């Protein structure tokens, strides 16, 4: 089986967020770009399926400015992916989800996979649009918020659980299909040092910006325009409730919730 994993470079969780000079996006100055947390679960899932079904190959695919995309592709290779494809962002580097989905679909047309895995969303824009858009572009079924993906070896036999409102749904799909993974349910592995060193020299296929731009062009007119990127006003810290007895503390809090915060009927 050929598996493709879509991975996105996102700012490291420790990044101090700050708007850029125009106030339209995150200031990329000094940001460390890493494999998105949800995508780590997708890579882990791909590797688990590969271990269970010998002969399976896993290709990681990423879109973005070359240095960022190739950084996370090397992380994916160090974890155990077999091959990597980098989609070079055009100079204007569109970041809207549907344009990015079109770029990823281009790579998947060159490297058809029977299973496409991705995270259910990325940790930066938290959109969750790219995966289902790729599925629609390629005419694949898609299953979101999935855990426990298993393959019985046949073309009809991919089973999984999906966490939806109210519970866990057990589903089954034929291949090819796209599955978007819930984060962290599978305890993603960490890369071993020799594999990290090896991944530094591994070849990465690069699809040039001109070709990527042509694939993205059809959604230029619908791409959302950024108007602002803001940080919430700093939280000033809790208003501490003074009290002599626990009962007094409780009564004061109930009164505040009711009269001041208005969150209690």
């Amino acid at each position, binding site marked *: 089986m050929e598996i493709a994993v879509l991975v996105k470079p996102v700012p490291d969780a420790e990044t101090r967020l700050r708007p850029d000079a125009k106030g339209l996006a995150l200031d990329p100055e000094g940001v460390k770009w890493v494999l998105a947390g949800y995508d780590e679960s997708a890579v882990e899932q791909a590797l688990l399926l590969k271990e269970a079904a010998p002969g399976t190959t896993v290709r990681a695919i990423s879109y973005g400015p070359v240095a960022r995309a190739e950084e996370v592709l090397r992380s994916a290779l160090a974890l155990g992916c077999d091959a990597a494809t980098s989609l070079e962002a055009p100079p204007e580097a569109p970041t809207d989800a549907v344009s990015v989905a079109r770029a990823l679909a281009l790579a998947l047309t060159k490297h058809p996979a029977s299973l496409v895995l991705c995270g259910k969303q990325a940790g930066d824009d938290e959109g969750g649009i790219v995966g*289902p858009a790729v599925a629609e572009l390629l005419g694949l*079924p898609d299953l979101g918020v999935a855990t426990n993906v298993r393959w019985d070896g046949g073309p009809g036999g991919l089973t999984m659980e999906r966490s939806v409102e109210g519970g866990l749904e057990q589903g089954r799909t034929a291949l090819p299909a796209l599955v978007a993974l819930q984060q962290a349910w599978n305890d993603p592995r960490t890369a071993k040092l020799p594999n990290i060193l090896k991944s530094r020299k591994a070849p990465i296929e690069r699809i040039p910006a001109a070709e990527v731009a042509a694939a993205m062009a059809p959604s230029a007119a619908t*791409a*959302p325009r950024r*108007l602002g*990127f803001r940080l919430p006003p700093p939280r000033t810290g809790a208003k501490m409730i003074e009290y002599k007895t*626990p009962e007094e503390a409780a009564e004061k809090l109930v009164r505040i919730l009711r009269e001041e915060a208005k969150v209690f009927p």
Partner: protein
Amino acid sequence: MTGVLVLLERHAGAIAAASCEAVGVARSIANGGPVVGLLVGPGGAAGATGLGVDRVLLAESPNLDHPSGAQLAVLLAAAADAASSTTIVVPGTARGRDLVGRVAVRWNASAATNVTEVATSGSGALRVTRPVFGGRATEELELPGPRQVLALKPHAFSPPATSPAPTPVEPLALPEGLAKAPALDVRGFQPTVGGKGPELGDASIVVSGGRGVGTPEKFQVVEDLAEAFGAAVGASRAVTDAGWRPASYQVGQTGKAVSPQLYIAVGISGAIQHIVGMVSSRVIVAINSDPQAPIFRVADYGIAGDLFAIVPALTQAVRAARSH
């Protein structure tokens, strides 16, 4: 005139709260145009009256018991065209949100998910605000017309008042593309193992306990407070990792992200892991024995003290307040 189509998602026969919120938003951006609901699946038009939509399109077929994202996208695009809608609003549920990317491609629409504010902005465009980076920042986007598809962040909007007027229901002619759309093969359903109250991701009040609660038995004090509030029960990672409560209780980066009207953190110190899962709650209350605990920096109101004295007193006070 701009019509708006809303997907009415049903859970166990009742229209999901998230869909009611979507109806309110649809009305606010329709500029007097019609707000039309789409109902899918067997079950007829049950639940459709009183929602505040002008009419309901019903896509009925036994094959649509568990519609796939691909099938729903086909139906949404067809219904929006049939109703001359220029915007589609889907509920901010797991299933709803998964439709946005598909509809954006199929219907050639501008798209945004997790929307917390929306306004019309002339020439058919919409301006939306949405949290990013786990609520640590927000972005504002302009979605160009003529077509948009939105998923709302749960609880970010109030549902409109219900109206007793009967809602006209019309069948939606099943579009040709439906047969070609990949179906979903659902083999079973396991209700969430959670507290007795409402579901974590869905609740307007959440009470969570952390390591400070001490033992699995003493966690009951958190559950009693939640019950008094009619709230969902959550937990920090320390609690679920230790096996005091199942993993489905976990709020945080590796658990569920919640944004209720009121979040009460009991005995939770406030590791960043936990904070990112609850910081976008509207009002946060922290109860902790350590007045220096980082949770007090993100909370709106704090009580420093012995939680085993404070929480039972609060449970009593809440019960008393609710019985009046």
